[in-house]
């Protein structure tokens, strides 16, 4: 996996909540046995019209968002299925960072991203950033005011700075940060604990759990 280095890119917006993985990549594209070629199918049902041409009404098709590499969206992004194809599509389209707000529902703080989706992002070098709704609103307004606006994402410093001047800091899990910054291979890392796994297996009964 490539290291996650500080970069500057166009911010694309998708002003919808609860975007599910069926929307991110519809099921007909899950039949591939390859790991590539998903970028063109990202948001397929929204992005293309009946005759397969880009639908001008779809936000991300706006010319100002061409080449966008930072996606800003709403709460509960990536809910639904476990399909990693959703993250492959996002990454292969060119997004390296996805920003969404956490939400409050009663006493519960509702995370911005669905669990499995967020995990899948880490495995593919995509950074997910949770901000407050107010902060995400600010980014939306800044982009609306000047479409094509760029942002600089600095994972080391845990900041995202808009070209227009405003910057935000974000929290990130230390393990996730290290994995992304170093571009670590998960399996190789785990296999460093091979002897622990073998020792565990020697006494663990997999019929009893």
């Amino acid at each position, binding site marked *: 996996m490539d290291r996650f280095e500080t970069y500057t890119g166009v911010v694309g917006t998708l002003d919808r909540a609860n975007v599910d993985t069926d929307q991110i990549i519809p099921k007909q594209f899950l039949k591939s046995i390859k790991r590539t070629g998903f970028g063109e199918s990202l948001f397929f049902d929204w992005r293309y019209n009946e005759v397969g041409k880009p639908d001008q009404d779809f936000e991300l098709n706006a010319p100002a968002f061409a080449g966008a590499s930072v996606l800003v969206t709403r709460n509960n992004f990536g809910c639904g299925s*476990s399909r990693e194809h959703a993250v492959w599509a996002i990454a292969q389209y060119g997004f390296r960072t996805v920003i969404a707000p956490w939400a409050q529902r009663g006493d519960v703080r509702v995370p911005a991203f669905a669990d499995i989706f967020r995990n899948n992002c880490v495995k593919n070098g995509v950074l997910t950033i949770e901000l407050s709704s107010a902060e995400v609103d600010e980014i939306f307004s800044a982009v609306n005011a000047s479409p094509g606006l760029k942002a600089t994402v600095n994972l080391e410093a845990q900041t995202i700075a808009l070209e227009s001047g405003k910057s935000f800091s974000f929290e990130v899990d230390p393990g996730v940060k290290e994995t992304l910054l170093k571009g670590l291979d998960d399996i190789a890392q785990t*296999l460093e604990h091979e002897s622990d796994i073998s020792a565990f297996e020697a006494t663990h009964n997999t019929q*009893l759990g």
Partner: protein
Amino acid sequence: MSKTLFEKIWEKHVVKELSDGTALLYIDRHLVHEVTSPQAFEGLRMTGRKVRRQNLTFATMDHNVPTDDRSVIRDPISRAQVEALSKNCADFGVTLYDLDSDKQGIVHTIGPELGITLPGLTMVCGDSHTSTHGAFGTLAFGIGTSEVEHVLATQTLRQKKPKTYKVEYTGKLQPHVFSKDMILKLIGLIGTAGGTGYVLEYCGEAIRSLSMEARMTVCNMSIEGGARAGMIAPDDITFDYVSAEDRPFAPKGEAFEKAVEYWRTLPGDDGAKFDATITIDASEIAPQVTWGTSPGMVTDVTATVPEPGSVPGYSAGDVEKALEYMGLTPGTPLTDVSVDTVFIGSCTNGRIEDLRRAAKIFEGRKKADSVKLLVVPGSEAVRRQAEAEGLDKVFKGAGAEWRFAGCSMCLGMNPDQLKPQERSASTSNRNFEGRQGKGGRTHLVSPEMAAAAAIEGHFVDIRQWSNG
């Protein structure tokens, strides 16, 4: 210290606490299907790695398979995916229940049937509805393809410990109200992200009196509430299910007795603490019907299509978009909404008990002429059982198409799909835009509600309908 069911299982499976705050968790069972595994096997090939524990890994094909004529998969891409799984299982020494096997079926239906799913285990699959297996008091959750590869290679996963959420259902369900309604009700209350980061533990009188199959329906849809896993403490109902004949992988005889002794220690201790709690009075739950494009957009069958701005957890804009997609007008009674297609099946409600309950409704009745009715057993074993009981005749007599096992219309990856703007009553678990076919409009309901909708051509309150 008092521990929850989840904590007991988690602790027993931690190989090592890692420096990054995650735990290396041992995985007792790994289920594999054709859609989320090819890239994982490819990864193993590229790195020269093997499947670490072939005997803990089981594969089947379900998503892509046609459910009418199984002799040929016409879609070449689907066929390639199914063939890739066969080759991968042969190359890597993984047990596969393919289309020629009498054990084939939806991965979450066959795991419990074959005794692969047992209390106290950790279990994963590259599929979010792996939460189903939590009904046995199993820590079971869905993973992505990179994680599938990780488990194949290491039999472990690096996981951050989730938080715990106690979901208690007090009281008794009304007649004709299903476990499906219990879980839809919960999702309506906490929202589709309300359980994110948590493992749900279902308890209370109404849960304890559910059969294993009904418990699986509840746990199945934990993911629709945002939770990767949902669990129910094992009890005598669980042990009876596990000890049934025809569960080749379940312990037998003395080994079974020993296992039960251990399994009895699994339920959470009195006074165990949860990070969040919700209590629902089961006796007040009405049959549920979803009206929107997210499982959280759900209400009582006695209600009307809501006004934008009146739905907790959804903005007016979200509701407007959903209603536009669904072709519904606020204020319309749900019982006035007519359906074109009824689908009974999926890993949520495609087990024998679901089919029995649906068949009871159909007995001596016919579907409305305008409705297309599809009944798809969750596994080949369910199909055989249903046929032995004559349920297939009831369904066919009512005008249904009776099929072979598979995911079918739960998601349109195979030939069973809705056409644009077609409206379905479906016993599956997701009503996302396009889930059952591009432009299709899905309403999630219980098997009895689906059956009654097929007969009447529109939704009915099954409580009154079946009394009258």
